[in-house]
């Protein structure tokens, strides 16, 4: 294992295992070494990480742009979210070398063509209920800021609009409007995950909604908002 100075790309034994992958060349392009930007990892932590694990390069914004161009896909395309999920990426707009290589291996990708082909498979994964739920719940942790517990409202709204374009929920726009009017704060993980359950199980007349059930408070308020503003006529029972 050759060690090099911090800040440069590190070739390791790891590469020897991969052998002559055509992708190797591309990898070198995509992997832009990051310096120990404190806002990414924290200086001390980064130095320690580097000492312990030389694999600490990341693909960040520019690298992702390049990656998307090569894959012939829009960086805003939801399929990138699915890719991130496969790679178990910790944060959006970043892949660590470990995440990325690991993801490629588990997907069985060793050429660009194969990567492109896999994309349509990944799109289809969104149709599967269970898969969609996993990806939806994953995206909370992925989209939020590192070190924060909650997801900033604007980011959340963006994610919801992206996700509910795939799995259509008619009330998504009202939901986002409601949040901007009445809540204006970050979204908790519990609210995030329960919203999907709400969208999946509660009918559009809200007739099977139980206020005394275990729904998060914010969703209770949303239901109130819908009924008070006449957006939904709840059947009287």
């Amino acid at each position: 294992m050759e060690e090099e100075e911090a800040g440069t790309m590190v070739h390791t034994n790891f590469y020897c295992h991969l052998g002559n992958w055509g992708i190797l060349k591309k990898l070198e392009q995509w992997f832009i070494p990051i310096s120990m930007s404190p806002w990414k990892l924290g200086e001390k932590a980064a130095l320690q990480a580097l000492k312990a694990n030389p694999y600490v390069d990341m693909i960040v914004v520019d690298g992702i742009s390049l990656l998307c161009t090569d894959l012939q896909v829009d960086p805003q395309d939801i399929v990138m979210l699915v890719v991130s999920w496969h790679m178990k990426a910790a944060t959006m707009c970043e892949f660590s070398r470990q995440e990325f290589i690991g993801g490629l291996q588990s997907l069985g990708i060793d050429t660009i063509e194969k990567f492109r082909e896999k994309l349509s498979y990944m799109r289809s994964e969104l149709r599967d209920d269970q898969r969609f739920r996993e990806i939806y719940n994953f995206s909370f942790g992925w989209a939020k800021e590192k070190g924060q517990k909650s997801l900033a409202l604007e980011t959340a709204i963006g994610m919801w609009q992206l996700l509910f374009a795939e799995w259509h929920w008619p009330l998504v726009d009202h939901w986002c409007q409601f949040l901007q009017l009445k809540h204006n704060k970050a979204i908790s993980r519990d609210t995030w995950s329960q919203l999907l359950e709400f969208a999946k199980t509660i009918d559009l007349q809200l007739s099977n909604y139980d206020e005394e059930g275990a729904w998060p408070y914010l969703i209770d308020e949303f239901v109130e908002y819908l009924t008070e503003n006449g957006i939904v006529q709840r059947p009287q029972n």
Partner: protein
Amino acid sequence: MKRKRAVPKPILFSEGWEVIEQGVTKMKRILEGLPEPPFTCEEYMKIYTRIHDMCIQRSPHDTTEKLYTKYKEVIMEYITSVVLPSLKDKHDEFLLRELVIRWSNHKVMSKWLSRFFSYLNRFFIKRNSLPSLDEVAFTCFRDQVYKETKGKVKDAVISLIDQERGGEQIDRGLLKNVIEIFVEIGTGKMDYYKNDFEEEMLKETASYYSRKASNWILIESFPDYMLKVEECLRKEKDRVVHYLHATSGPKLIEQVRHEVLCVYSSQLLENEKSGCCVLIQEHKVDDLSRMYKLFSKIDDGLCRISQIYKKHVTVEGTILVKKADDVASNKEAEKRVVVGLQEQTFVREVIELHDKNMPLVNDCFQNHTLFRKALKEAFEIFLNKTVAGSSTAELLVNYCDNILKKGGSEKHSDEAIEQILEKAVNLLGYIYDKDLFVEFYRKKLARRLLFDKSANEDYERSILTKLKQQNGAHFTSKLEGMVTDMTLARETQADFKEYLQCNPRTNPGIDLSVTVLTTGFWPSYRSSDFHLPFEMTKCIQAFTEFYPTKTNSRKLTWIYSLGTCNITAKFELQTIELIVTTYQAAVLLLFNDSNRLSYSEIMSQLNLVDDDVVRLLQSLCCLKYKILNKEPNINSISSDDVFAFNSKFTNKMRRIKIPLPIVDEKKKILEVVDKDRKYVVDACLIRIMKSRKVLNHQQLITECVEQLKVFKPDLKLIKKRIEDLINREYLERDSENLNLYRYLA
């Protein structure tokens, strides 16, 4: 010589019967009341022996069976030829009398005949499983006489009963005897009594009382109606004792009660002029007690009354609330004195309402759970509304404060005070926001203790004991701590005085007394960067040096806003001692060095905020005592004003207290309580989940509500706290069942 055994000559039936016939005839004559001496022993034996001998004969002279048949014939003959005719054309009372006699006679006849024929019982009857002699006699009477006459008899009896009900005198003894026949005819079973008499009797009773009641209901008031009910029930019970069979008792009373009370119960209770509500209102204790007794016997009776009662109390209480609200909205906000008076009146009137109702519940309603509950729920309904813009918890605190402070508007004897405090604490039992009460009480208690306004320390401790009894030690721990602090402060003060004597160079030359408050017990006071007048700084220094000699490792934070000061003011004509707060004293001391000071100068020299400065200056030149003059001379403070010492001030008294109006900290207190509630709910939820590990949403909420005694939690609040705990990873949702929570260790 052989003796020939004497074989008795066989008795022929007709021969034998003669003797028996004689006996029968004699007996009939006795029964008819004809002059005839009673049977002698010999006569009896003769007949018995004759029968005996006839029975033991061998065939063909064995006439046992014939005797048995003849026995029955004799009875039947008597019945058909004598008994039945005697009853046939009789009616009513005459019929009854005759029947009683005939039945009695029959029993006698049966008794004697059985004795005569008793040998038959020994072998013949047993061997052939035939009805006994008694049974035969009895069956004859029943089938021939009883069955014939029972209809007429029943009608006669019932008619007599109705006559008695109507007020006439009847022969009760006769009825008793007749009714006994119905019973005895059943030989152990009550079937005949029930079917041939009781059933119809009950029906007739029902229709009798139904008629009566339909009349009464039109003319009688509720109380009078109840008297009538009581009376007729009493009479019917009496009837049972005197001539009906005991088993009819409950059924009869039930029937009567149904017709007279159940049918009309709603109408009676809801009667506008004299119904339940009116009786409660007019406090008609006797009528209410009667009503309770009567209605406790009918289904739902007490339930309905308790609902009327609850509604009534709620309405009365709500009227008091509205009264207070009206006064508050009619007066301007500044006239707090008048509003305060109305608040006092409100609490006092609520206590009076409670006092008025306790005897109703305890005596008239015999302390029944339904009524205790009704009273409790009614009070809970109206005592948990906002009154005149304040929570009732606050009003109750103010009421207590008035009683406990010196110069309060209530003047009472020692005993009376104990009672009043007891009643006030009692009211707290109905108020949900008990934690709010504690917080407001703390504030008032602090003022009483620190400004020496408490009338009597014993009362202070007494009310705390009562509160502790009602709500537990945790409820009053802070309050008790405050009172204890005052006792400790006195000791510390004594030690301080000693210290000053021993260390004369530390003596500031001004009398200083210090009260040390334990943080946590007392309400939190905001500290400020107040500039202490230099005259006082030496005082503070002295104490600051002394205190560590008493105790270690304690940090002192000075709260000057709570201090008081006695300051001598030399006016042109007089010297007067002014009792003021430390802040007010600081303002006045500024004028020792300057004749005139502007608002901003005062503010910067004292380093206080506008709100405080305005209040201080107001107290010194716009209220009762004008210690300072102000330009311009209008009654409000503005930041352009200029102030000067009013040397021309005079007053009759040598010593006056210049009050500083208190800031209304209601909003702050509500905030504090709200914040505390979040912690309390969190702690409760965690406690529950820790012990149960897994629990569903509804159960968690229910248990939480049950466990929280100090306030009634808002369900939304609990839900929010649950979510917060999920966020903080104390709990998680189950992945399968979204209604289920799991405790995360």
